[in-house]
């Protein structure tokens, strides 16, 4: 609160006081009081009013600073009315009481929303796990089918698995601390696991895989990073060009290791590139091919954030796309 705001708010009162005092001065002068006495009286009155206003201003400002300090110190701001210091004036007391009532109803609404969200997440997780049993059974049965139908069927099953996996990680991203375990892994191990998981898709897509300089250790969660790499591989296969190739290469910059997944696919138009990590963004390529959900890269960036991995994409239309994951160095890794 600035002095100007304070004065502006009270301007009407000052004008009223001023005109009232002026009227009193005119009245005194008319009833024969000496001008000198009136002047002294006016000076005293003005001084008294100024002092009272100055004290009011300082008190009010100090109180606001105190309340603001309490608010800033709160992690959950909506708990303000519960944590505020006792009211100093009657007006504050009545006001706080009202805030408290409104705050309680808000806290109730928030915790209801939180618990229903948690229940929903738990349902999605258990649904995903239930889905895995019939998919496994279908995979086993699929072995008995011959020829082209088997290839087609197992491709569809692969799609199903990919969708189910995304749903699982979407639910998990709500409480990553329950699932992430940061440990040292060799980059080679992680890359070969991710390729292994998508072997079927890559072979059927006729993709040539190159790996380059995958030495070194990264500190991360294997399952999560494999999921992220899996999304990138799936995209590379989906948006492949003629004679598709994917190169997975690592670079060491100081203590940091970064891994690049580069393809020679159809690429992303420059004006769409800044939005590819947005939730639900499908882009012209995604719309042209259909079946794009706009969730894959969004999840990648979200999960990468939890692993403290920086994710960046470069692309040129008609030439290919490269996504780089910069792993945190051991020293920079904050405790999860």
């Amino acid at each position, binding site marked *: 609160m600035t002095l100007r705001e304070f004065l502006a708010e009270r301007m009407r009162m000052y004008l009223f006081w001023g005109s009232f005092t002026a009227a009193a001065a005119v009245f005194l002068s008319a009833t024969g009081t000496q001008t000198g006495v009136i002047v002294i009286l006016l000076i005293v009155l003005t001084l008294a009013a100024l002092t009272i206003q100055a004290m009011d201003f300082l008190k009010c400002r100090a109180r606001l600073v105190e309340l603001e300090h309490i608010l800033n110190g709160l992690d959950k701001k909506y708990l303000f009315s519960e944590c505020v210091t006792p009211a100093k004036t009657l007006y504050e007391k009545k006001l706080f009481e009202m805030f408290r009532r409104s705050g309680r109803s808000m806290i109730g609404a928030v915790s209801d929303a939180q618990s229903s969200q948690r229940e929903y997440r738990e349902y999605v997780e258990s649904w995903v796990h239930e889905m895995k049993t019939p998919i496994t059974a279908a995979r086993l049965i699929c072995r008995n089918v011959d020829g082209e139908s088997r290839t087609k069927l197992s491709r569809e099953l692969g799609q199903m698995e990919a969708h189910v996996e995304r749903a699982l990680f979407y639910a998990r991203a709500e409480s990553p601390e329950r699932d992430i375990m940061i440990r040292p892994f060799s980059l080679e191990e992680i890359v070969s696991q991710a390729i*292994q998981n998508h072997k079927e898709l890559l072979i059927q897509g006729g993709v040539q895989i190159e790996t380059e300089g995958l030495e070194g250790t990264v500190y991360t969660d294997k399952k999560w990073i494999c999921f992220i790499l899996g999304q990138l591989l799936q995209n590379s296969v989906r948006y492949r060009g003629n004679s598709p190739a994917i190169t997975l290469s690592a670079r060491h910059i100081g203590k940091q290791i970064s891994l690049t997944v580069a393809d020679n696919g159809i690429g992303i138009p420059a004006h769409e590139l800044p939005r590819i990590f947005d939730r639900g963004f499908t882009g012209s390529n995604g719309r042209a091919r259909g079946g794009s959900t706009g969730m894959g890269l969004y999840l990648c960036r979200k999960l990468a954030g939890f692993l403290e991995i920086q994710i960046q994409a470069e692309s040129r239309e008609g030439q290919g796309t490269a996504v780089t994951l910069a792993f945190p160095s051991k020293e920079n890794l904050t405790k999860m």
Partner: protein
Amino acid sequence: MQKIMIIEDDAVIRDELSLLLENEGYQAVTVQDFTDVPGQAREKQPDLILLDLGLPNKDGSLICGEIRRQSSVPIIFVTSRDSAIDEYRALSLGGDDYITKPYNIPVLLARVRAVLRRSTGTPEPDVMEGSGMKLNLAKGTVSAGGRTEELTRNELKILSYLLENKGKIVPRADLIDALWDSQIYIDDNTLSVNMTRLRTKLASLGLPGCIKTRRGMGYQL
């Protein structure tokens, strides 16, 4: 014949899995009644147990603990729950390996083989023999008739896979699949190139035409 016990509540998976294992040359035993699983395990004396962690009314990890108390049979967990905590808890209870559903069938079989090999103490063979040749996996060489040729990593893998499946027709897709499992990311064209080179080397050892091409089906040694 090694006996594998399948503890799995989903009937379809149970039947298909035992069929798969029997095709691979194992004897499969299934558990149908889940009231006294440790007792059945004791009675059947399997060489390996595949244990589903999500059994009805009973937590699979508890069953594992009970089996562990009376025997040291290797146990592989099969589960659809794959959170870090589940994995950690399962392995700390004495499981030998952990596979999540939906599993990749070759991976499952490879894990089964690896765990069985570890438990019986037979090391991975260094030398494979058959079709008049001797393949040294450690040195990466193939010899026949007193002569020896060096093989590249890809050629070695191709030949060893064909030797493992001697007499059977190996489809190209299966061969590519197996190579990818060994981090050799080869495509159809590269496979043809490697195959030609391998055949030339075998021919120089006096074994021309030992790898037959079965048109439209695959290769056969």
